[in-house]
């Protein structure tokens, strides 16, 4: 998947209207980020990549890049 498409799709999945996601966006700094968003990330990764992430794994992510690393960087291209 193209990185820019990933940012856009993730942003839509998380229903963030006021933030433009980039590789460096830190999830916990986004206003209103909570456990429901963690659920949304699980759903998004499950449906788009067929991969199941645990709450513990997601607790340890910081920015969008760290989420991409969890999914596997070989899934992304420029």
């Amino acid at each position, binding site marked *: 998947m193209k990185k820019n498409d990933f940012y856009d799709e993730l942003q839509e999945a998380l229903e963030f209207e006021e933030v433009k996601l980039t590789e460096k966006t830190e999830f916990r700094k986004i206003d209103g980020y*909570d*456990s429901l968003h*963690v*659920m949304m990330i699980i*759903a998004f990764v*499950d449906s788009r990549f067929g991969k199941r992430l*645990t*709450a513990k794994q997601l607790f340890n992510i910081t920015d969008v890049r760290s989420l991409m690393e969890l999914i596997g960087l070989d899934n992304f291209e420029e």
Partner: protein
Amino acid sequence: MIIETFFPRKRLTNIDLETLFPDWSAAKIEEKVGIKERFIVEENETALDLAFEASNKALRSFDKSKIDFVLLCTQSPDYLLPTSACILQDKLGLRTNIGALDFNLGCSGFIYGLALAKSLIKTGLAANVLMVTSETYSKHIHPNDRSNRSIFGDAAAATIVSSDDVENILEFDLGTDGQGMNNLILMNGGMRNRLEGTVNEWVDDSGNARSNNHLFMNGPEIFNFTIEKVPLVVENILKKNNTTLNEIDYVIFHQANKYILNYLRMKLQIPKDKFYINMISTGNTVSSTIPIALKDCRDQEIINEGDKVLIVGFGVGYSWGGTILKIK
């Protein structure tokens, strides 16, 4: 099968929650979890009281002297002992030569209650089972745990399962995995960890107050469990009943929250018009969401005589299960 429901009088609206937690918006809560308000018991009102009221409603159209077994599903009993079902038998004035017991399950409780009632009838131990689900999670939730306060509501449902109903309750698929115990738990108050007078409190990542004296739910892990198990249980139910999703007229899952339900619906490719999502004015009432939904669907003629309805419950334990009902 007679189903009646009962809700406490007191309401907790999203506006109330917005007032309590000013950085929360009522509209956002509704949009995210699909709940606008929920009913909450008063301090002196218990799950047994709700169970009594729901049962009384159900017994208005059924001769109570014919009830020969009481099953009561609750995780909020009045006492550690005696079991609430015994007290309910007495309060309702039911015969004394009948069986009565509580079983401790959450969101899978209605399915297990139906499975138990069917088994009791099939084996000849009973002919008319009063099966009650009654829950007051509001008593377990920390006052400043806004996430759980926005999701859970209190309610009871009384279902009378009779010999005539058994052929319309088809094959079950049930499952259990205690490895998930820590993801939805009330740590203190049992014999392992006695209730503590002063307890350590902390605030989680989402700004919710937590303590071991209160209900803890790891929402994302519960979601993971759900998206793993529910598709499997659906597949197993269909297989055991030698049918397909196309032949099912309507699907009712435990009403956990709107987001989870929408995701499951999409994952299982169930058409919107065959799938129930409605917890807007009740919230997640744990073991009562399925009977509340069944009653609502019958009242509104969403489901009608002859329809095959697939029902699935899943949650705390982990515990899950489902079956197909043929509507009479």
